[in-house]
């Protein structure tokens, strides 16, 4: 049996799956009013009620997680905002890697690689945009002027488009990409093989071993 290292602790994994489950519901209930052919499903406000139940979960999950895991939260947020020259190199080398499996030019990565950082950064930034615009549309639908509400819908939509596209990429790279193995494992069982850690997250592997 190959040696394994822990990549995501149990609370982090639970947060991930609760949060992503809520996200999928939010995404689909949002998507159907974006697609005219499907938006008939939104009649009688049914999908809005589902959207609201999901968003409570979506917001509550991290709010419960953060105070219980303050240290790793701070570490994670710091990581999302720490960018260096290695990240630029990674982005340049990434196409050759993801198309041709050419790992040569890929700089060694920390706990998160540049792509993961980008996704994580987006989760933080777009999460805030979704939350603020959504809250205004929920709580201030009667009180706020129509012009403000229209801009909130527009911004919510922009965030939806950006998050939706990156969500496709996220799912694709973790589950569908023919050359990627192990990353799904890291979020289900929490562990990856030492070999995987060495080749994908060299800097991080050196730190922990």
């Amino acid at each position, binding site marked *: 049996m190959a040696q394994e290292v822990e990549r995501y602790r149990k609370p982090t994994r639970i947060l991930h799956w609760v949060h992503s489950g809520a996200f999928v519901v939010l995404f689909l209930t949002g998507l159907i*009013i*974006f697609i*005219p052919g499907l*938006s*008939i499903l*939104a*009649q*009688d*406000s049914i*999908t*809005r*009620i589902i959207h*609201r139940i999901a968003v409570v979960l979506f917001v509550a999950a991290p709010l419960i997680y953060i105070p219980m895991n303050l240290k790793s939260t701070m570490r994670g947020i710091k990581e999302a905002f720490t960018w260096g020259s290695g990240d630029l190199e990674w982005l340049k080398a990434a196409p050759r890697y*993801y*198309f*041709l*499996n050419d790992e040569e030019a890929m700089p060694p990565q920390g706990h998160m690689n540049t792509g993961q950082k980008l996704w994580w950064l987006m989760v933080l930034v777009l999460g805030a945009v979704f939350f603020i615009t959504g809250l205004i549309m*929920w*709580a201030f*639908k*009667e009180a706020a002027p*129509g*012009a403000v*509400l*229209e*801009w909130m*819908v*527009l911004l919510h*939509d*922009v965030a*939806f*488009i950006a998050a*939706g*596209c990156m969500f*496709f*990429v996220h799912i*694709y790279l973790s589950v*569908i*990409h*023919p*050359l990627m193995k192990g990353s799904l494992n890291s979020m289900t069982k929490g562990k990856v093989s030492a070999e995987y850690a060495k080749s994908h997250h060299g800097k991080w592997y050196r730190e922990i071993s």
Partner: protein
Amino acid sequence: MAEKAILFDATRCTACRGCQVACKQWNENDEEIPTVENGVQSKNWGSYENPPDLSPSTWLKIEFREVERMGGVDWLFTRRACMHCTDAACVRVCPNGSLYHHELGFVAYNKDTCTGCGYCIDACPFDVPRSDRNLLTGSAKMDKCTLCTTPGLDRIAEGWQPMCVKTCPPKALQFDNRSTLVSEGMQRVNTLKSKGYTNAYLYGANELGGLHVMYVLDDSAEAYGLPADPQVSGSTIAWQNVIQPLGWALGGLTLLGLGLNYLVARQTKVEQEQPVEKED
């Protein structure tokens, strides 16, 4: 079919509000009369206007305005209801086509399929659509004047006049072909001008591509509480004509790119799994 319209001659209106009552009666929009027995406290808010605002069950309302002009005080009456725009912001933003243009040009809607999103309420340049919204669940249904085309209560299909027009005692309201009413309105405005009402104006002839409710005014639109230059808002256009098509393009390109990557990467995998290939 020739487009139909309503012409409201504000100079003939006596604010009897018969139209309000007839509208409610025909469209079955009863409202609880505010009495103590009904549990609703009536309140004097210093106006003859009643009820205070449009609502899901008040599709038409006459507004009262006192203005000083020509050395005296005049009482101006404005008909507040859906203007049935040709370029209707509400139709643009409705996500599932519940709001649509009737074949005679009016803005009709299918209440059954309404999602209650309220985008029409935010987008309307005349602040007309209303809904009863449950703020917690967000469930709502929009309501507004249908120009008497509500299914089952469709007077127009029967060849009858809208209820408000039918009931108007001073004939301040007319219903006819839109083009007929435009020329009639113009004539009326010219008469008013010759009588010294220099600001007289036919409101709705060109606004928003032409309204299907036009007003003969003996003063400026503002004096009657109407927006002088009603527009579909910039955010409506940015959202509908830029952001949404951009969303389709970006979403499509992302999926296309991922599909392409899948094909190439699978090929790479097949090649590299052949044992003769170079090491690592």
